[in-house]
């Protein structure tokens, strides 16, 4: 039996930064991870976008925090994670999309986002070579950006270890014992732990962990494929998002990494539910067709690697964050809906504060993202 202040289940996009901030706040912290190392669940599949451009204020707030943290890693901690403040650009080629984006500007600006509508000429300036026929413009948020998920999770792992957090890799949670409305201990295939706070940060497998205490979590993973090209000289500044669906796909988005590579992802249509992360033959022809249609010069860029990852989805496209009513020391940080990488650092910081100082530190976050909300509607910029 081991005892600690905070036990985090899952060393991923959320669990690793959270471990760091908990340890930094002086909490004894242990992270249990079934994979062989950190970030091997959905973090490894994240393409690296970090945006505060959302339609929900709580998410905007969390991601603004994340961006501040990741953007500052080099200056404050001396760790390069290839962050670049390239901005996010949602392009519109039809009236419907233009209206939707313009309508969102109000909430986004109210939430403090630096975002505005830009015309076709500015779009072409930011993305030279993009198709201009039919281009109406888009919303551009220059404060958003991108970084390497691999380097970021390694950075937080290193910081967390440096701050005293302990990681237990290759260890699987097998049972959770509850007693008097609290989690009494967490049992794994190797050991047993008692903790002041237990955090479920198990990503695509969060519902399974919930199931161990008969807590039904509405988190179901669906699958998305992504890819990366060879590098080329920088020509594309923002993360480019085209949310127009077609017969076989929903939105798709791509950006150019600091190393010069284009990383891309597409939402399949219909959605593919489940945890199968094997690559399929339909992805590359589909995503390549759409990207080359939008951006013809990409035709000469070679695709280097592809992979498939999971989006732990919730019914309304928003995460589930906060203590449970059933077990007072069980905290949820689940259902990131494919945005764990951009939510993780901010969430880690806020949750660690909540563990130390109480949920009063960010009432809006805990209210809006509560497990006990109604799960109505769908986040527009999912």
């Amino acid at each position: 039996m081991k005892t600690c202040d905070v036990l985090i289940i899952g060393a991923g996009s959320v669990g690793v930064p959270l471990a760091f901030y908990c340890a930094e706040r002086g909490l004894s912290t242990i992270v249990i991870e079934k994979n062989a190392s950190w970030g091997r669940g959905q973090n490894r599949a994240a393409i690296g976008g970090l945006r505060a451009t959302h339609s929900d204020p709580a998410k905007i707030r969390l991601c603004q925090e994340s961006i501040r943290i990741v953007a500052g890693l080099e200056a404050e901690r001396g760790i390069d994670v290839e962050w670049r403040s390239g901005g996010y650009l949602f392009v519109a080629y039809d009236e419907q999309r233009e209206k939707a984006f313009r309508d969102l500007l109000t909430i986004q600006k109210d939430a403090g986002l630096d975002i505005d509508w830009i015309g076709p000429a500015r779009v072409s300036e930011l993305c030279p070579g993009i198709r201009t026929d039919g281009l109406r413009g888009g919303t551009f948020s220059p404060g958003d950006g991108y970084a390497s998920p691999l380097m970021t999770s390694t950075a937080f792992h290193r910081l967390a270890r440096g701050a005293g957090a302990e990681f237990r890799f290759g260890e699987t949670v097998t049972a959770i014992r509850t007693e008097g409305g609290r989690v009494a201990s967490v049992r794994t295939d190797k050991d047993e732990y008692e903790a002041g706070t237990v955090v479920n940060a198990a990503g695509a497998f969060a519902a399974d962990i919930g199931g161990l205490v008969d807590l039904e979590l509405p988190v179901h993973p669906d699958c998305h494929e992504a890819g990366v090209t060879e590098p080329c000289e920088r020509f594309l500044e923002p993360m480019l998002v085209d949310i127009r669906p077609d017969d076989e796909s929903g939105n798709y988005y791509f950006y150019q990494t600091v190393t010069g590579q284009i990383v891309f992802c597409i939402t399949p249509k219909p959605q593919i539910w489940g945890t199968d992360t094997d690559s399929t033959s339909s992805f590359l022809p589909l995503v390549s067709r759409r990207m080359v249609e939008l951006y013809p010069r990409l035709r000469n860029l070679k695709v280097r690697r592809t992979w498939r990852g999971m989006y732990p989805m919730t019914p309304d496209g928003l995460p589930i964050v906060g203590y449970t009513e059933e077990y007072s020391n069980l905290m949820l940080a689940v259902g990131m809906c494919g945005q764990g990488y951009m939510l993780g650092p901010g969430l880690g910081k806020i949750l660690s504060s909540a563990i130390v100082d109480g949920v009063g530190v960010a009432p809006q976050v805990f209210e809006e993202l509560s497990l006990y909300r109604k799960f109505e509607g769908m986040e527009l910029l999912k």
Partner: protein
Amino acid sequence: MNRITSHPVLDARGPRTEARFAFDGEAMTGYEGEALSSALFANGVKRFSEHRKGGAPQGIFCANGQCSQCNVLVDGVVRKACVTGLKAGMDVRTVHGVPALLTDDDPAPEARVETLKTEVLVIGGGPSGLAAAVELAERGIDVVIADDKETLGGKLVLQTHKFFGSEEDCYAGTRGYEIAALLEKKVRALPNVRVLANSPVVAIFKDRKAGLYIDYRRYMLVEFQAVIVAAGARERSILFPGNDLPGVYGAGAFQTLVNRDLVKAADKVFVIGSGNVGLIGSYHALQAGIEVAGICEILPKINGYKVHADKIVRMGVPVYLSTTVVSVEGDGKVERVTIADVDEGYRPILATARTFAVDTVLVATGLSPCDELYRQAIAFGFTAVKAGDAEEIAEASSAMFGGRIAALSLARMMGRKVEIDREWLDKREVLKSKPGDVIARDRVEPGDSWRPVFFCTEEIPCNPCTTVCPTASIKLRPRKGSLLDLPYFEGSNCKGCSACVAACPGLAVSLVRRVDADFAEVRIPFEFDASGYDLGVRLPALDQDGRFVEDAELVDKKYYKKYRTWVLTLRARTESAARIIGVRVQDEAVTRALPEPRYEYLPDDAIVCRCERVSVGDIVDFIKENEIRDVNQLKTIRVGMGACGSKTCSTLLPQVFRKAGVDPADTTSGTVRPLTLEAPMGELAGRVTTTERDDNGGRE
């Protein structure tokens, strides 16, 4: 021009169309359709790109489409020179760091990716893949063979030496490239085999489809029921400082340049590794008129067949045992190599260092199977088998049996009622056996009539001498009871026809007879050009171990066209004639070290990940700082993130972990994901490329 215009074994190429092209603005000439890398080498260009990290010069490494070290800019697009066919008018440029993307902004025309259906996809058209395809096709199964080269036959195409094994089973005594042609002809005659040459498989997917890059210009999917992975093997890299200098490359790459494309790729080479590849590569160098300064081998014994080693030693090439490479240095290209003896822990003893001036260092330190597509197929639950080197590294002779056996195993897995001939299994086992014992032979005294003398003393699977003897006087003497047994002259009926001398793949048979009281004649095989030797000339005759015997007079010479081998008749003293089996072709001065060793010892500078230029030192530090136990985490410092997909570095990582104090057994290996080779988005979207547009009048 660095072209090989005469070669003792290979025919000069028929007339080819010259193609003028430019490299960094300089006018050059090559041949239409030849590999661009070979055309560049022929024009003296060995530096193809400058890495974005520090501008380090990069040259070829595999010349096999796998490693991406030979990237150049062709008409503005980065391409692997080794799989790009030269076209007149090409504008070829050095890649400096990260190149600009061509500003080619015309909307793309509508396109679709075609899907071809077949029962069995055979990945790789080498000896095992072709043998497998024949077996399947003969049983009425539809087959698609996908091979990444234009000429089928795999590495046989590069082999100019005669093969071991037996004539009846695996074309023993026939040269590799000739076996390739025979196999290709056989496969192409089968109506239910579709051959997709020059078409690498870049990925296989969960939905039982493979992505093929047809002719490196069109993407196509092949939907299959079952798959045979016969993709061969790739050369292992090795760690020493300077291991990525242009001029350090695989022995297979060397054979591609020299034997396939007839390019005189080097003036003087040093070879690392004494396995068959290193030994044969050295021999091929000599045949191409390239000097060989030596071969080093870290183990205390020669790794390849003894007959190959004997052959190379008696050409005047030293093999340094228990010796390793300490450093390869030069200003942007290989200029010298330093070797040293090793201690019992295989660490170099620097006091023994010696330096040789060479322009090329060939890496022949073993092969690793190209089996990643097989592993993926199995992970997906497909009906799949592997064959040839992808299954187990061995000779082409055993690969052919392996292919046939794999094909029938697959047919059974597919529910066909077929029996696998027990005899095939036995034959494959024998053909892939490691060499057996070395058995001393009795000394032969020349008599009045001809008789053969055998210099093959190590048990290897080989018997052509027994099948070519017109009087059936040569027989394997049963010891193991298999093809491994050694041949002996049984009887007295030798007509002196020299068939055994010319046919022996190991060049290990001579004929002797006494001609008078003091002298005898000896007939030896010779695979160099003897047309310029006048009768009466004295040649430095050597024994099996390369020791000088005497200057012997050439009294006759004859060319055996079938075996592409000369047989020289020398007049030598009776007491020494039976020891003679070779003639020195390389002067001893070639193999001399520099008077003083000249090197810096910086082992941490050795490059592990060539694509991203990550060194041993970088990785060791990262492992220690972050307590890395999962190879996937090395991607943070970009190990395995390059074009090759960690094909080259993955075999080196265990020793790097060990160096960082981590037992490789405690590490989790890296995940392999598609693609195994890069392909452009335009083609992946279904478009046929640029190359076609070039045909229609060139690019803007």
